[in-house]
């Protein structure tokens, strides 16, 4: 799409700032990174096309996407299963061409809806990240239960989140509605403060 002259505005403009917050610990127990994707798409398989959609997603990502609550990331694109025959694809900087190809490839197999502006994405990591998340997320985050690549539709501090355990050690992706970003941020900073928080 052509770019407009208008100023883009991120949902936490004026609210979230980089730096160290909370307890002055030697190492931050929780590290927060706000992700600004270049594209987010809701992908819903058309009637009878789930297998085709899975195959198409897998081909384009070069990795095996499944029809289930799993997140797969490859080449700057992640695909998370959010319901039967439904996925959310998130593309990061540098994956423009792959995203465009994927969209074309899915034509006729799945409905693809632009959601680029609808979500707020937060990546949390650090030694104490599970302790901080436990203050509002009811899912058992122990790696033996919720391991790398697992996805859950759950809540964080009463806010709906799509939660994924990333492949990196003790790192989680929280995807929530853009409108609730401020409330999620308030909850997260409050929950992580005692462990020392670094905002990147």
């Amino acid at each position, binding site marked *: *799409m*052509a*770019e*407009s*002259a*208008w*100023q*883009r*505005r*991120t*949902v936490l*403009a*004026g609210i979230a700032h980089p730096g160290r917050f*909370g*307890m002055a610990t030697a190492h931050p127990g929780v590290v927060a990174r706000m992700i600004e994707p270049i594209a987010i798409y*809701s992908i*819903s*398989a*058309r*009637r009878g096309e789930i297998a085709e959609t899975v195959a198409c997603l897998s081909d384009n990502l070069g990795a095996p996407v499944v029809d289930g609550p799993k997140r797969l990331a490859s080449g700057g694109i992640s695909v998370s299963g959010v319901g039967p025959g*439904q996925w959310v694809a998130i593309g990061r900087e540098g994956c423009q061409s792959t995203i465009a190809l994927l969209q074309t490839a899915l034509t006729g197999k*799945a*409905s693809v*809806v*632009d*959601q*680029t*502006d*609808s*979500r707020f994405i937060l990546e949390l990591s650090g030694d104490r990240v599970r302790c901080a998340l*436990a*203050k*509002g*997320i*009811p*899912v*058992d985050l*122990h790696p033996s*239960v919720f391991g790398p690549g697992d996805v859950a539709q759950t809540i964080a*501090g*009463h*806010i709906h989140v799509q939660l994924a355990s990333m492949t990196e050690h003790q790192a989680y992706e929280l995807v929530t*509605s*853009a*409108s*609730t*970003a*401020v*409330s*999620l941020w*308030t*909850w997260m900073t*409050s*929950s992580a*403060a*005692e462990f020392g928080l670094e905002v990147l």
Partner: protein
Amino acid sequence: MTASNTATVNGQPFRQSRGGHLERSRPLSFTFDGKNYSGFGGDTLASALMANGVKLLARSFKYHRPHGLLSAGSEEPNALVELRTDARREPNTRATTVELFEGLVATSQNRWPSLEFDVMAVNGLAAPLLGAGFYYKTFMWPAAFWEKLYEPLIRRAAGLGRAANAGDPDRYEKAFAHCDVLIIGSGPAGLMSALAVARRGARVILAEEDFALGGRLLCERQEINGQPAADWVHSIESELAALPNVTIMRRTTVFGVYDGGTYGALQRVNDHVASVPEHQPRQRAWRIIAKRSILAAGAIERPLVFGNNDRPGVMLAGAARTYLNRFAAMPGQKVVIFTAGDDGWRTARDAAAAGLHVEAIVDRRPDVAPDVTASSGSEARVILGGRIMNVSASHGVRGVGILDRNGQRTTISCDAVFMSGGWSPTVNLTCHLGGKPQWNEAIAAFVPGAKPAQMIVAGAANGTFALGQCLRAGAESGGAVASDLGLAGGPIECPKADDEPVAVTPLWYVKESTGLAFVDFQNDVTAKDVGLAAREGYRSVELLKRYTTLGMATDQGKTANVNGLAMLAASRNLDIAAVGTTVYRPPFVPVAIGALAGHHRGKDFRPTRRTPAHDWAVEQCGVMRESGAWLRAGWFPKGDEDWLAATSREVEATRNGVGVCDVSTLGKIDIQGSDAATFLDRVYCNTFSTLPVGRARYGLMLREDGMVMDDGTTSRLGQEHFLMTTTTANAGPVMQHLEFCHQCLWPDLDVQMVSVSEQWAQFSIAGPRAQNVVSRLVDRQHDVSLSAFAYLGAREVSLAGGCPARLFRISYSGELAYELAVPARYGDAAARAIMMAGEAFSITPYGTEALSVMRIEKGHVAGNELNGTTTARDLGLARMMSTKKDYIGRVMAGRPAFLAEDRWDLVGIKPVDRTARIRAGAHFIGIGEKPATERDRGYVTSVAYSPTVGHWIGLGLLNAGRKAIGSRMRAVDLLRDSDIEVEICDPVFVDPKGVRLHG
């Protein structure tokens, strides 16, 4: 001081110089009622006060009798104090559970002017008048006096501490924890079961109410594997702490059991420090989800019921051992033991060993095993088959009157009485899901009955009191749970310990008592009260509780209930098992409301949602108000305008020029697929398959029962692509409904839907000059002239040289209007651009109030009318209900009652006196009729002051309303004392022909 090892230790006259589990190197100073004292690390407030010789701690609830310590745990009914000061003041804190810290400030409560001299103690003299049910008997007449006189008087005289009078400055948290096995309690059974499951690799949470692990092992002079029990505790604690699969939660009380293996627990994270460290919570409420639980919560000792058994210095025998052995504090010097079982003899032995003078051991049993009597280790006088009738005391014990088995009365002077009525297993958590405990005659106690699924009970909580048995029970329970979870490994070796004698023959009440004999210490319930309640017909244990207050308040009768219901059973000549217990409900101990709220207080009470143009609205001085979870501008005041002035100005500016309103909160659902049109035809009562691409149509959705569910416009963006909008309030429910319809009713349809509410920021641009504004906004190549882009058009455009946007020519205000949608990240920029494009036309931002006024002026229905009780016919929308197709709600909407002629219709109303204000919620009553339910003809749903017509107007639902147009009714609101004569009119007040829509 008689004891050789006792001297004034650090100014604490009743502290032993050695022994106990104290950090003597860490002296702590604190105050009680303004007086300075000192204690040690490892003390509770109770033990430190005892070491300082403070025996009088509180005044009782009703009679203001002097009270000291009864127990040493969370069951304490007596020693309730106010902890801390000012905003942090916490009333009714049990001194026995308060971990001492430097600078602690505690105050006694429920006394005036002082603890030693309490004027209200005169109530004690009136005890014969203040018996069970006295409220109901004494203050019945005259009825009007209750609220104004009696209740305030009683509240001042009775009641306990004072709540803080300012907001709690500390933070509280809630958190979730998950484990394979939750172990509740860390006494011998708890520690052994933890070891047994942890060594086999289970994820374990060990929750201990105390600040130290060990339970009774810290309080007894027992040995395990030939070493002091406390040393064994430390070795097990070290092993558990080193295991990565074990979480030890100290200062954590599991207070409730809930469905699905969920347990509520309160962790007192920072109650043991003077001020909470920055960024940390004071307390944390845990929701622990466990596959299995092992309840090893121990047992609670029962008092004996005899005259003046509530005097300071009379305490539970096991608690006396706790103070002596754990805290090296001396609960007395010359003591008498009164026991119903072997346990009292252990106290005699430990008291003697600590250097106390045991004056007498009174055992209610005529025959006691010789090994028990031999174990007392003291020269005390032994009175078998005897009982204490009375304690003589003022503030402290002076002596006891004893009746021996031959009827001889003796008086023995003493300064403390240690009583043991037997132990009650702490079965509470086994009962929270409806289980009832079972009476076990052999141990004279209730033991767990039907337990929550996946919970097993071990040790004293299961009625197994002796140490060796507890250790074995813990090991076996842990092993069984581990095997049940499929964990590899075998049983663990059980350490060696003796099984001490634990026989008991209960004595529920000393009939020969003189003076008041208390059953429930916290609520001043005496043996006589229980008897009186039974005689007056309160024969059920639940009625006994309500009538006498036995077992109420902060301790919930932990020490009182069994004695009380045993006495009830005796008076009814029933077995205790037949009387049963009251219902055990969570929480096991009081839990501060702040802990249950956690993060969610103040502005964080619930999450809020902000639209993309939130900051713009704030800059425009928008008064942001909650609209569901959303924050929306209600109005944009200028200068000192009030809401009505601002709203009226916004309406007039829009109707005469142009206004802009942020409508991003409307629900938006993207619907695609080859069957999308068919799907819409089924969920809407009107037809969408005929809608051309590039057009929008108003749609009405019914529920299955024929009532209106929601309305909104849906646009056809492509042959197989629609965009539905919903009301703000129903965005979620409609999405849910559509998904249900697709997944459960018509899975065969090729339709895909997803909410795009958050993707688009949307603005309504309305008014005669709206087209001028829009044409300046969109990029030049798009022809948005009135002829090229007609009413109900829907198209894609671009703005600002490339920003993709959707433009809809739809109107809620009744004016020529557009809705412009842009990707959310440009919402803020779009709002500013609209303002700039509209500057030449004095564009005015308007809020939800003006939005509402304009829709009422147009007779458009909204949430007040779409309230789940109205049909399309009621709302004048029957013409929208297609007769050519089937749709959800069609059949049920045709029920005869929905078509009855006298059913209500949507009407407009105007006050006859045009200056009068109508009230929403007022009911329609005929002229000259007395307001009454049977003459109710309907009600006013929405009202507004209409600047366009110059007076208040309203919409309402009136029986046979359409026929009544032109007539007069009254709108009567008895709650707000408003009775207005109104004209019934057509619900459309402005531009009934809809001319303005077309510009």
